């Protein structure tokens, strides 16, 4: 099974996984790593390296970071220099839900592209949805 790793500031990744599990049930081969106050970036980098190894069952590991340019993203970029892997900057519920529930029957490349599109489509102006619904009724 494709592994999924979320690297974020604080507990965002872990909380996101917990929220997805509330909907889709307990998930395996997924891990979150967080950067907290006082944490050494070098230690987090080591933990990223170890998680990439641990989660790789042969189909690869898809990595998510919270946003481009932050320390988690920069550390992931440094790890990429050593061994290439796929990573998306931008983590939210729709993306993680998609990633964790569509790992079977997809290659990691397909999963990554689907997740990227889901992320792009995930911001919706709810007031516009409401306005259209109101016009129909």
């Amino acid at each position, binding site marked *: 099974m494709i592994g999924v790793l979320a690297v974020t500031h604080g507990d965002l990744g872990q909380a996101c996984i917990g929220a997805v599990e509330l*909907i889709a049930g307990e998930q395996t081969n997924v891990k979150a790593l967080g950067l907290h106050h006082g944490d050494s970036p070098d230690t987090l980098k080591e933990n990223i390296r170890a998680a990439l190894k641990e989660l790789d069952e042969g189909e690869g590991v898809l990595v998510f970071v919270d946003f481009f340019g932050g320390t988690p993203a920069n550390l992931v970029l440094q790890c990429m220099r050593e061994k290439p892997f796929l990573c998306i900057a931008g983590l939210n519920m729709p993306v993680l839900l998609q990633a964790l529930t569509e790992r079977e*029957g997809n290659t990691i490349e397909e999963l990554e592209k689907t997740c990227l599109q889901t992320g792009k489509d995930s911001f919706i102006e709810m007031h516009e949805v409401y306005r259209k619904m109101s016009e129909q009724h």
Partner: protein
Amino acid sequence: MQSIKVTVCSKSGLHARPAANLAKLCQKFKSSIQLKANDKSVNPKSIIGILSLGVPCGTEVGFTCEGPDEEEAAKAIAEAVNSGLGE
């Protein structure tokens, strides 16, 4: 090709958990499946796809299944939707 129409009877419509259950069920079949509702059509093997339809309780939705296990898929989907998708 198998086409069925069913009415969503989950109390809150096709919200996250029923959508997750429906997607999990659809993923078991090799057939390609389409879910149609509100003039939109999505692949119900994706939770996000199902949720994007915003289907409230009482809505009639259509499924089309095409492939080697289309009959089995249509039957299982109809049973699952009619029984409330685990709600």
